[in-house]
């Protein structure tokens, strides 16, 4: 369960700024056969892929559409991001890495439905595209579709066990599905590689608690707190475990800390919609979009466009001095 609004132990940022590792991973199919793919795509155009596609792929691809008109004019960052995404669709309508990049950009900027279509289109072309599965899994998790999340995350991890966020997210999805016995090894594997991720320890603590292994639950929640001392929820986990272990004094202490931290968490009132972001966050997000797009153009032998996009990444909001308006309430029910 994503405890938005209260401070859950920090989860690793979903796939971190994409290009370096992720793009390589995303483009495993492309990178390994970049030359062949580029030649084929260049030579045969989209027709080659269309020829390969079954009707479902065609349907998914056909559903993709430009989004330029979707954003209020005052939201500079979103509009710029959409322009990048639309450009990717226009220039590489059937390239899986471009569809992935487009989906990633749209997801980051709040266009969930269109982002999912783009990612699904990428997967329709490359079924084991791990990074796309990871993003779809994270999105499904965020939306409470835990079965879908678990499915995508498992497929992603099967293709690429090093996906940065999939392990802890899969653990969370499995916990929420009541499949704690499956969650434990997933989380333990993740922690073995990423020992300092508080969210993983927290989810492991949840799993142990559900399994009535309160000693282990307490240890995991304390470990989560060691890595994120501001987590009120981990305090609650410790308190519950101590309650069950009969350690009333410690339970009381952590319950007090839980209440204090939750009360101090200003995000509680912000759970329903992102309240906005700082100018730096906006710039960072947009820079990531430009950078990701630049890598796609570079991989497809279009260096001039790639260079221009890199320049944009260096200064993504030229002239912007104030934070942009809050993004639209995507996902707000």
């Amino acid at each position, binding site marked *: *369960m*994503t*405890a*938005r*609004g*209260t401070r*859950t132990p920090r989860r690793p940022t979903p796939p971190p700024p994409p290009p370096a590792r992720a793009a390589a991973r995303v483009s495993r199919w492309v990178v390994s056969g970049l030359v062949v793919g580029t030649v084929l795509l260049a030579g045969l155009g989209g027709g080659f892929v269309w020829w390969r596609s079954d009707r479902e792929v065609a349907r998914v691809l056909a559903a993709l559409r430009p989004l330029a008109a*979707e954003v*209020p004019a*005052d*939201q500079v960052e979103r509009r710029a991001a959409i322009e990048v995404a639309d450009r990717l669709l226009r220039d590489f309508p059937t390239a899986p890495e471009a569809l992935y990049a487009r989906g990633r950009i749209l997801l980051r900027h709040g266009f*969930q*439905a*269109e982002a999912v279509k783009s990612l699904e289109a990428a997967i329709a072309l490359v079924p084991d595209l791990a990074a796309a599965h990871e993003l779809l899994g994270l999105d499904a998790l*965020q*939306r*409470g*579709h*835990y*079965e879908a999340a678990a499915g995508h995350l498992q497929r992603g991890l099967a293709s690429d066990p090093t996906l940065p966020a999939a392990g802890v997210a899969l653990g969370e999805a499995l*916990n*929420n*599905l*009541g499949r*704690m016995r499956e969650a434990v090894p997933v989380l333990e594997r993740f922690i073995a590689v990423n020992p300092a991720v508080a969210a993983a320890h927290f989810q492991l603590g*949840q799993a142990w*608690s*559900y399994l009535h292994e309160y000693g282990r639950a307490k240890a995991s929640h304390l470990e989560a707190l060691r890595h994120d001392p501001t987590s*009120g*929820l981990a*305090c*609650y*986990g410790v*308190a*519950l475990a101590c*309650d069950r272990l009969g350690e009333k004094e410690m339970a009381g202490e952590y*319950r007090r800390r*839980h*209440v204090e931290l*939750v009360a101090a968490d200003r995000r*509680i*009132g912000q*759970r*329903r*919609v992102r309240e906005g972001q700082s100018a730096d966050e906006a710039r960072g997000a947009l820079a990531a979009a430009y950078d990701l797009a630049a890598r796609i153009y570079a991989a497809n032998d279009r260096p001039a466009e790639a260079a221009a996009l890199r320049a944009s990444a260096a200064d993504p909001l030229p002239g912007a001095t104030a934070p942009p*308006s*809050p993004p*639209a*309430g*995507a*996902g*707000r*029910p």
Partner: protein
Amino acid sequence: MPSRAFVSGVAAVALMALPCPVFAAGPIVFRDKTAATGIDFRHTTGGSGRKYMAETVASGLATFDYDGDGRLDLYLLSGVPLEGAPSDPRAGSRLYRNVGDWQFADTTVAAGLDQRGYALGVAVGDYDADGWPDVYTNDFGPNTLHRNNGDGTFTDVTAAAGVARGEALGAGANFLDIDGDGVLDLFVANYVDFRYDTHRTSLVAGRPDYARPREFAPRANRLFRGTGQGRFDDVSAAAGIAAHAGAGMGSVCFDADGDGRTDIFLCNDQRFDFLFHNEGDGSFRESALAAGVACNVLGAPTASMGVDAGDYDNDGRIDLVVTPYFNELPVLHHALGGGQFEDVAARAGLGVRAVAAVKWGVALVDLDNDGHRDIVITCGRIYEPAAGERSAWPPVLFRNLGNGRFANVSDQAGDLSACSGVARGLACDDLDGDGRVDLVILNRDGPATVLRNESPAANHWVGVRLRGKRAAADGTGARITVVAGDLVQVAEVHSGRGYQSHFGAWPHFGLGTHDRIDRIEVRWAGGTTDVVGDVPVDRLVTIVEGTGPTDTAGSTERGQP
């Protein structure tokens, strides 16, 4: 008080149940009967486009037998035009009399319930102990208490009873008996401090939408003590209720720790929920955190909307199920005993396809009469949907597997999954007396939905109607234990539950293959106990305090009050 046991065998062999068919775990099936019922109600939020906060939380509903004909009638709450909205003479809550054969007649005006309040929550209880159920509605604006005259009409007695209480944005309401004196008291929940002059909106996707609840100050709730003389005294401060302000929504009164006294659980939106523990001296102590019911298992205060109380695992303790916001699992507070609870929702399987929607109405009811209470949840959006998103959602049905886990069977329940709406309130009761619990859903700015339970009728059941003498006349607060072989179930009589709604005043027990009931034990709110032995099944049994069963009407014949 001294406990008094009353044991009675039901002598009449003629009342013996029909031979028991072999149990078969069939599906739970609902059919949409709305179009055939004659119910032309259409809920309105009374919105003018200004996005007033009151619109987001409207409304609940009630099922109860107002005219004593043995059939459960419907009272569907509605808003009325808010400031700036055009007048709408048809807007308002409606009373529908159940005339049988799935026909309902609009008797609102004839019954005198054609009030023009902005109704949000409702509780039904016999506050004057005359044998007829009275109706309290919790409104945006002054609340109303309507006394049932016993002739099919009601009289507004709000002023005389002293329970109007200002212009608050109301929420749930409950009659309860604080001290077991047989006189009903009244708990009235409030949401946030929304008024026209505190109105504000949020800007979402460049357009105004409803403000978030935490943008308003929370409102304290109220507790009224019944005097027995037709009046209530406001004891909110003295009882310790007024000291706590959340953003109240649905509420339920139940005995959280088995001490025989009725406690109060209140959902709070985006804040810790409250459990007001009845201290036995007229005061209440807020103890939700200590009891483990203030938040979900993660420690996060959820946006709690509705709540129901029932024993889902037949361990003899009353559990709680709470409906929160989207991307939050339903919360299932399993009672551990001693007033302690543990949220086991994920372990119980409630994370399966029940998280994406905003959840409101909720009921723990046995829909297939297998002796295990299932969970129904209604869903619907609050804010304007963005492109590609939807406002209307179908209900969610979790079938109790009898092993502590639930299975989401929403897609296998007949018309259920086709009944999408922007739902709020839910009421679950046996509307046609066939022994299967039906559903009524109140949809925001839309028609109500009436779903007939057409599940295979292989299992047995019993309904229990209580009549108190020294205890509350309608049995509110009583705890009923039904023992049929190795199947032991408990239930309490609640006034007000779910999402600001009222239903189930005649607790329903599925019995599986058990064709005889060994005994029914009633612990009245005052502490006395009656035990009725050897009870036939498949009927509504009426138990009168101190005298045993007076009526064991069959499934097609129900007794008069």
